[in-house]
């Protein structure tokens, strides 16, 4: 009569509920019923269970309330009282005559655990872990098992492999480009199978390609970096000057009308720098000169 689900959830629940159901059935037959619907029985069992649970819970609370660990009869009585159950007739009810007695439930045979293939030695718990905690799983679950060959650390082979790989990559790349683009040949007959050469085309700025090589990148050397830092200060100054200049230019565009104001602005230039090349550009000396 129990559901499969509950059985799966907790193994002890099934037998307890079975007994409960039996006792509910007994009570029903005492009350004169000869048959009971499955649903009704379930409901009654449920009611009975919640009642007992509630009763146990309340008694436990009462016992704790009075500073004890184990409940006594008084606690149960108090619980019954608080649940609104009359307990005076309880004793006589227990002594009733046509009481059915349920047989003592037999001990269920413990199901044997299915043997799991065990490999390796299980590790014993370290001293700080209590024994009751689950044991370590099989060693293969956490220990790395070498399943491949020993890597080769031989210098010679490594060099060999590295160079082969590099050359293969290079060859594949160049062949691909050669086969997808225009080619030249060492020989009189153009053919793609032997030594295809990527055609040489004129560049727009050959000097840039030549002076900014791409075959390898190097770390920037320290001295150059140092110099760059020193220079960055200058660069910032230039930028600031340029910004200023631009701002001024914009203003100038707006104010092209009055001549005098422009003169003042270029005179009030705050930047006086060491190097004349990073000095800001001056504004023309206006139309004053050109008009007369």
């Amino acid at each position, binding site marked *: 009569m129990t559901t499969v689900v509950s059985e799966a959830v907790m193994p002890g629940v099934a037998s307890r509920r079975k007994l409960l159901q039996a006792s509910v059935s007994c009570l029903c037959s005492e009350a004169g019923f000869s048959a009971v619907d499955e649903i009704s029985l379930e409901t009654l069992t449920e009611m009975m269970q919640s009642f007992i649970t509630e009763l146990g819970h309340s008694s436990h609370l009462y016992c704790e309330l009075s500073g004890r660990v184990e409940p006594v009869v008084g606690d149960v009585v108090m619980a019954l009282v608080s649940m609104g159950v009359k307990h005076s007739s309880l004793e006589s009810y227990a002594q009733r005559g046509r009481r059915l007695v349920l047989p003592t439930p037999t001990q269920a045979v413990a199901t044997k655990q299915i043997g799991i293939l065990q490999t390796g030695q299980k590790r014993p718990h370290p001293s700080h872990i209590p024994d009751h905690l689950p044991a370590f799983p099989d060693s293969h679950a956490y220990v790395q098992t070498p399943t491949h060959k020993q890597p080769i650390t031989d210098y010679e082979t490594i060099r060999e492999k590295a160079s082969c790989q590099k050359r293969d990559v290079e060859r594949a790349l160049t062949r691909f480009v050669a086969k997808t683009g225009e080619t030249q040949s*060492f020989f009189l007959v153009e053919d793609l199978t032997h030594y295809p050469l990527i055609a040489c*085309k004129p560049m727009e700025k050959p*000097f840039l390609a030549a002076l900014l090589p791409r*075959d390898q990148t190097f770390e920037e*050397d320290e001295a150059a970096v140092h110099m760059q830092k020193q220079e960055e200060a200058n660069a910032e100054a230039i930028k600031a000057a340029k910004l200023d200049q631009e701002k001024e230019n914009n203003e100038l565009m707006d104010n092209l009308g009055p001549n005098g104001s422009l003169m003042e602005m270029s005179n009030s230039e705050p930047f006086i720098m060491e190097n004349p090349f990073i*000095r800001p*550009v001056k504004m*023309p000396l206006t139309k004053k000169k050109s008009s007369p």
Partner: protein
Amino acid sequence: MDKKIPKIKREKVPERDNDVSNSSSLSVSGPTIPQRPYKLAHQILSLTGINLQTKSVIGFVELTLLPQKEFRQVFLNAKQCRIYKITLNDNLELQFQYFDPTQEICSDSSTKSLEVFTPAHQEAVSSTDPDANLGELIIRIPSEAQHLMTEGRSLRIGIEFSLEQPAGGLHFVVPPGEGTLAERCAHMFSYGWENSARLWFPCIDSFSEVCTWKLEFTVDASMTAVSCGDLTEVVYTQDLRRKTFHYVLSMPTAAPNIGLAVGPFEILVDPYMQELTHFCLPPLMPFLRSTARYVHETFEFYEELLGTRYPYSFCKTVYVDVASKDCSSFSTLSIMNMELLQSTPYLEQTYTSRNVISIAVAEQFYTCFLSRQGWNDAWLTQGISSYLSGLHMKKLFGNNEYRHWIHQELDEVIKYEEEVGGIILDASKPPGSAVPTSGGGQQPIRSPDSFHFWPHSAHTVTPRHARIMRKKAHLVLRMLELRIGQPLLIQVFNKQLSLAVQASQQKCQANQWGAMLISTATFAKAIFTVTGKDIGVFVDTWVRQGGHARFQLSFVFNRKRNTVELEIRQDAASGAQPARGLRRYVGPLVVALQELDGTFRHTLQIESSVAKNDLTCHSKSRRNKKKKIPLCTGEEVDMDLSAMDADSPVLWIRLDPDMSLLRAVEIAQPDYQWQYQLRHERDVTAQMEAVTALERFATPATRLALTDIIENENCFYKVRCDAAFCLAKVANGMVSSWAGPPAMLMIFRKLFGSFSCQHIVRQNNFANFQHYFLQKTIPVAMAQLRNALGVCPQEVLRFLLDLFKYNDNTKNRLSDCWYRGALIEALGNTASPVVAVVAQSASALTPESVTKETHQVLEEVARALNLEKLLPTYKFAVTVGCLRTIRKLQKCGQLPSKSDLFKSYAQYGQFHDVRVAALEALVELVKADSRMADWEFLLDIIESDPEPRIRHELLIMLASNPPFERGRGSRLDTIPVMDRLWKLMNTELSHDAMLRNDIVDLYNCLYGRRKPPCLSGAMYQRVAEAPPTALESAEIPGLTHRDSLSHMDMEVSVPGSGFGEDGMSVASVEVVAGITKEVLVQQTVTDTESTTLDIGGFSDTSQSLPGLGVDILKKLKRKKEKKKHKHKHKHKHHREKKEKEKADKDRQKEDVTALSSESSGPPSPDMGLTF
């Protein structure tokens, strides 16, 4: 606005000074030259419309003159300019005449010979020579203006002019592509050969006419104009689209020292020296940063050395694309080639870059600040700046490098002088009577006739001559240093500079500016005042005369008297007709004798062409005592003395060890002495000489000595590299007795093999730079090894391929691009000529037919070349190596010699180094295969390439490796070709003296000084008529063949490599004589077009030539003889049916191809006999 500032200046000009005795206007060329009746005080140069798109410039110059006396004409220099208007004092318009005689040198071009051209060129140049107060532009001062100059006030002559697409003087670089000019990195700069400022603005274009300057350049707002002097301000134009750069140069400066560069430059202010500013195109900023890092050190070095502050307040360096020279120096401005930019991973470049920078800075002091009087004094400015930079190099790179360099320069000078003629540094005066050499005989060195050009003017001298002259000047100054001592010489410089600084602060009227010019006379005087020594004799000997000495030293040890009997001969220089470039030397000469007891120097007095001296030895032979032997440096070393002569205590002998003379030395001493010299002499020059000498002695002892040197870590790396090449030659010499692995293999493995497995090269680590050079050189040298069969041993090739395979640069801080380039070149060196008697035609060479070795080489080359397209290395170093290797393979007949590959790499739009390498290959191809199409390709580049530098370098290559020999009737030697060259030389290159004189050199190589043979017509005439007698005579080939064979033997045995071509062209000559004639007949019949016909057909025969020895040649001869007879019948047949000739032409061509012979043979058998 432009004219505002000059107006202010003008008012400042005070009273004139009548003193004319100022040396600045004194011309050294002789008293006949008229002095300028006025002095130049100030000049304004204003270029308002610099347009990079249209490559045009609009400008204005104003010269402020101080009249000394009345004059009616003003001569100025101007070329290419269109002059709109000339005004006097802004209001009076002046009449002017413009005539440039250099536009057409010879109007009569009937002879087209250098004999005619050279004097005419000389006359044309000197008729506008500013030093003689002449010029292209003659301005008349009208009589109504005469009163202006009598008052002694200054006159201002203003000239408005424009330049449109100037062919010289200014170079515009405008790369094609998208974007604005600034984004495309368009820029322009001025360049020129010596005094060539006239090409871009009218001026007095002389180094001796100095004045102050005001310079204004209006450029696009995105551009920066960099020029001489101090930048006073930058002002926007009214429309704010352009800006004007105002420069003021208050230091008196000559017009040729004015330069300009305009472009979208990035500005880098030197963080160490605020006065220094560097410029480059934007993407190259990181490189500029690391290149500019040490410029300030150079300045500091010179300032400290000369005890003089840098005379100007600013200095600028601009890096531009393909400058015509590595560096052009202008006052306060150096325009450098962009290729000098480098950064730390590319350390090898540092040697070149720092050298150029150091010369550039030295030229700021000497050339720009201290200018010269005339061309005859140019040796001083050039020599002193080279000398100073030499001292700097010595400090930077060490004494070994310096001495090696001096030795190299000396060799170059000697080689040039013996080939072309003695260089006279200063020809203004004949050497004085005090010259002791006059005793022996007439010294013909002075006659300029020995040159095919006029050597005494900057504009007629060939660039090669000028380059060597500079080296010679440097050597002469170094010799002077040895005579008077470095501190005193520096003191002289210091005095000159400080006088000049004083003078420069004076006004023009004070007539002091002459102190800013140096000349031979003032220099000698300055030396006299400082040191009290008269260098008159020295100047007469080495400066006013050309040529050098050549000593042959031999000696015998006299056991009885314990003396060395020396004999020093100067045979070539003595006699009535001394050899070219040689001169007999009379005077002291140092001989250094290394004996067992130490080095002893003896100073001999050489008085005649054969000098015999007995030198007493200091040490008895006593080698049993096992004592250490002291060297010239004072250190004592152990030597293994078993090799030497048991009686003689002499270990080795050196002549003039300090290079204190311009001399060539040939010392005859036995091989063990050379070996001792190589091992134990501490002077690198002596070691180099020993290495060179040991090539002749292929013995195990030499091998051991060379091996020891290569392995010796204390030895100078260049000596070690040279020793590697020498060892390769020695190993080839003793190929039959060589035991063990190929030479140097073990050394290389020991030095560069990995620890665990020596056959794999270590991962690159170039931290030890000397090892780097060695690692780069040894494979190249090893590739030259040959086994007994004359091919490169398998083992070496495998070794080289392994180097490629295992090359790993990932852990290296330096780039391996040059190393890889060198490896590729080494692969080329492994190629040896194909030994095949059967002439393979080009079509027979297919990818399938190549040998296994060639296949491996080609694979490697193709991969490297392709990879370079995708991941270019610095300066395409690998591509350059690939191109050279391809050409070498072609030469050896392992690849068809086809030119289109090289042509594509030689075209405009490739990087300069790549183009040069491709052009080198093409020049060789043209010489070997004589294909007209290739030759025309080269001529086109000469005529119209946008880069003057490439044209110049191509011309130099052609002149040193001419495509055909004079008068041999090569099919390239045609009248149209000659016409093109003549036209270029005569009329088209008036704007570029450098190129024009390069062509003079080439023309001389191709046609000699006389009328070109192809023009004389006789030869062609005869061929055209084809007299039957000529054909008959060809049928008796006995004599001719013998001649050709003996000639061939010579050809084959002399050059070690590349004899393929030389041999073949000769070999085929005789055999094909008959055919050639025929072909030529056709040529004349069917007009010149047929020339191209027969060219395409037989191209690549030369490479497959048997160049191995007489036996093979004889076989070949027999074979070809047969063929020839067959052909002759055919020919007769043709003659009978002349009307059918045209129809048969194609067939005949096939015949020729089948015979696979070149038609470069002489057109008639008579000519053939002239070998």
